[in-house]
């Protein structure tokens, strides 16, 4: 079962990476500083915009390989917020579903 910890605090994104996706240069967080720790993201799951009233917020689903992080970027205030950390204590992937070598 997922262990979701709601954080909802402003964080610093100290490094970014850029990707030329679908003919658009897009920016993604690479390193985050939170609670005195540095977290390096290894993969970006999905980025989707959502509306909070009239404000546009971009939601970034990131992972560092051991936990999932949900970040929100407020396009008006230009601030980053860590919404939740999902600590995943999953069973190993069954050989039935493991990707072919």
């Amino acid at each position, binding site marked *: 079962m*997922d262990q979701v910890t709601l954080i909802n605090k402003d964080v610093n994104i100290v490094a970014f990476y850029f990707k030329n996706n679908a003919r658009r240069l897009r920016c993604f967080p690479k390193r985050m500083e939170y609670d005195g720790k540095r977290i390096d993201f290894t993969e970006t*799951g999905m980025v*989707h915009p959502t509306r*909070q009233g*009239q404000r546009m917020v971009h*939601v970034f689903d990131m*992972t560092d390989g051991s936990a999932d992080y949900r970040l929100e970027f407020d396009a008006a205030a230009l601030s980053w917020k860590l919404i939740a950390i999902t600590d995943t204590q999953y069973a190993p992937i069954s050989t039935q579903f493991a990707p072919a070598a």
Partner: protein
Amino acid sequence: MHIDLNSCFATVEQQARPLLRGRPLGVTNRLTKNACVVAASYEAKALGVKVGMSFSEAKLLAPDLIMVETDPPKYHYVYKKLIGIMRSYSPNIGMKSIDEGIIDFHGTRQNINQRPLSVIGHEIKQRLRDEVGDWMKCNVGIAPNRFLAKTAASLHKPDGLDIITHKNLRSTLADMELTDLSGIAERNQARLNAAGIYTPLQFLDARSDILARKVFKSICGEDWHKRLRGWEVDDVEYSTKTVGRQFVMDDYNASEEKVRNRLAHLCESTGLKLRHKGFCARGISLYIQYKSGDAWHSRKAFKSAFFTSSEIYRRATLLFNQHPRLDNVVMLSVSCYLLEPSTANQMSILDDVNKQVRLTEAIDELNQLYGNYTVTFANSLGANREIKQKIPFGTTRYFELLCNRA
């Protein structure tokens, strides 16, 4: 061309959270043991988990099953992306639901309609992977009409691309059961069986008058006769007849006060949808299901049309006060019918009515600015946290409105 996202919500969740990829995953509207699985990943389906199962049943079949709650803005994003991709090929597209759509290539430009459709199908798959993420998969079906295109899209899941033409129609249907056809479930199967039709091929060979008179006893028989032969009969737009909302109670032993609180919220939500679509209504209906399994239903038509949330709540309360209180309420449903174009711009000769309309407009404006339910009825306070916005199955006409969170 029919495009169907595979296990849409589960795939999108796996796309968003890479650690979930390759694991049995279920998506549910509410993380409780009685909540049902609204989408299952292919890994979960391989273990026997089916859509509609309760969480506890699914957990018995797949002990490692991971359940996550639905996240509508994420699905809305994928839905918009899919629409964008489809629209780049033809202006004539239609979304059948949140995860499936149709592209009609009739009358498209030369640079589109001179390319083989199978090439376009593969291109759409690739574009979905590029623009959303590499875990996204979709099925593509190509055929002369919507029904056969949908059938083609269901032949090789996941990530298939199939074409049905007059050349392979018989061989394709020969490998299928009657219930594999979209629109044929147990009851229609029983009707067909009663007329001696046991396979899709026999269904294809059946005469139109037999289907119309003996099997379906309506024009549906003729429609099926054409549908199976590739004629388009499903290109029909249905107008909105009712607008409403229902809710399965979060507490099966809820007090009267709590039920009224949830009712107030449902009425607000109904009002929001009604005004979003530019309708006003003249009728309201209320459906209540009790814990004992009994149900009660009442409806009332009024002379005057209404569209404000407070009017909907007042009129729903008139009906609610009559309910026989057979047991605790477990499900509530409010819907408005006898819909007409909105009269919001028409000033009333009664000043009280005008005040209420202006108040509603002001509240709507505030809620648009700060998110839905920022300003709400006092007696529906707190209900917003319990009655979360769920993913709309079937129609997607309110999707954008409902994703505006506070």
